[in-house]
């Protein structure tokens, strides 16, 4: 894991998000306020601008600085949450571990911080319905040798999590104001999180 990998992942995420812009926009228009796509696009653009500045730093520094950049440029719920996720992740990087072990530990820490920030948990129709299952699966799979297997599994888990947001009411975030009217709509943050995870996984699936 190094700065180059991380920025490659970011670029892949950006590509996927841009490709799915209209869908994400519509999801937040349906049960939110319509800004989610602009928030994450702004965040990705700002993060990518850091590529040269961060090119020689350690992964923990890279995650921390990207997290701070997102914290100071995105705003909204997703800005606070994704910044918390990334800054949380930066805390658990260990030179001693391999990439998958690192990722599992870091993601776990990041997701825990995100849960605290959002005062939310699984089943509340938020991005956590993707992030939590993914974190749990990563922990389970952290010793798996075949990275493609991991990627395929994670991809599936993320998609299931994302889809699970469709038929429930929201109890956190803006969609919670809608009560039953939110049923039938996928949560925008769950969708963007799943797309991001997808983009990372696809790099390891031949």
């Amino acid at each position, binding site marked *: 894991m190094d700065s180059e990998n991380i920025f490659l992942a970011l670029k892949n995420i950006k590509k996927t998000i841009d490709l799915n812009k209209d869908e994400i926009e519509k999801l937040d228009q349906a049960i939110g306020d319509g800004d989610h796509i602009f928030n994450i696009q702004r965040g990705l653009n700002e993060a990518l601008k850091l590529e040269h500045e961060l090119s020689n730093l350690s992964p923990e520094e890279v995650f921390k600085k990207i997290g701070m950049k997102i914290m100071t440029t995105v705003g909204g719920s997703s*800005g606070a949450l994704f910044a918390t996720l990334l800054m949380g992740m930066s805390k658990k990087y260990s030179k001693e571990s391999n990439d998958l072990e690192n990722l599992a530990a870091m993601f776990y820490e990041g997701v825990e911080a995100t849960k605290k920030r959002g005062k939310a948990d699984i089943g509340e129709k938020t991005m956590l319905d993707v992030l939590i299952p993914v974190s749990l699966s990563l922990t389970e799979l952290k010793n798996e040798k075949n990275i493609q297997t991991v990627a395929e599994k994670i991809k599936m888990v993320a998609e299931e999590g994302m889809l699970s947001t469709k038929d429930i009411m929201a109890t956190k975030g803006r969609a919670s104001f809608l009560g039953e009217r939110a049923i039938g709509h996928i949560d925008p943050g769950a969708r963007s999180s799943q797309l991001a995870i997808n983009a990372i996984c696809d790099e390891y699936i031949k």
Partner: protein
Amino acid sequence: MKKFVNKVEEILTESLSGFQKAHPDIIKVNFSPDFIYRAKKPAVDKVSLISGGGSGHEPLHGGFVGHGMLDAACPGQVFSAPTPDQMEAAASKVHNGKGILFIVKNYSGDIMNFEMGADMIDFDHETILVNDDVAVEDSTFTTGRRGVAGTMIVEKTVGSLAETGASLEECKLFGDHVNNVTASMGVAFTSCTVPAAGKPTFEIGAEEMEFGVGIHGEPGRKREKIKTANEITNDIISTIIEDLKPNKNQEVLMHVNGFGGTPLMELYLLFDVGQKILEKEGIKVSHSLVGNYTTSLDMAGASFSITKLDEKITQHWESAVHTAALRWKI
């Protein structure tokens, strides 16, 4: 999209720049991180009030910075909560020895970003969460209700109390109280158009209205056929009354707020209708505010906010205020 805009990404910066130039006697603007603060430091040591939220609701909040109301306001991108560094910088700039009181509308994004900002400062601080929108069910297990046009009533009254040198705790308690006795609800005829999106946030039929709409164009209680002003007002006021449970002879402040695209003529008409309905219920509208104060960009529609008055709220509503958007007795 039909807007006065050069580059969509620059709209906020250019608008803040114009705001600063138009009101140099009242406010100053700090850029990167963006916040609006009073041109003159308060003469007395006082609790510093900081509010903020997504842009697109102007004059809320920047238009309420000045003597008798806010010390600073942090504008986010259109409909996106501001970032924590804005709150941190604003707090450092305006702190005046008696602590910081954040006034935050009850949305996850605002709450989290204000919390993160608060974590970054060393001063005493408290937060008032405004959740006046009775269109939304209240429940302790969920996010609860939205904060809407009642926010400015909290900002006005607590702002006035702070000006007397009251303590942080007193201001926080009073703000929570004003929030508790304030309830709001609105209706939209058209959708707003977020500049970055370039098209309306929601579709709505030529004969339809969104009853209980949010100030970001979020869906409300129901989509229904358009009704007369009397019927709409009745529906809104009865929901508000159910929530506030005012006594007979209760004196209230009634605020008719336009969402941006509705002519003043209609807002005053709504005020007339609302006053008549309340009068029938034995409730006395002793104070009023009519106009576009908490807008939703160009959305056509309006909301009612009602505050049950007591001596203290009345005094702090009436007291002198000197901001870009609200100005009296000074």
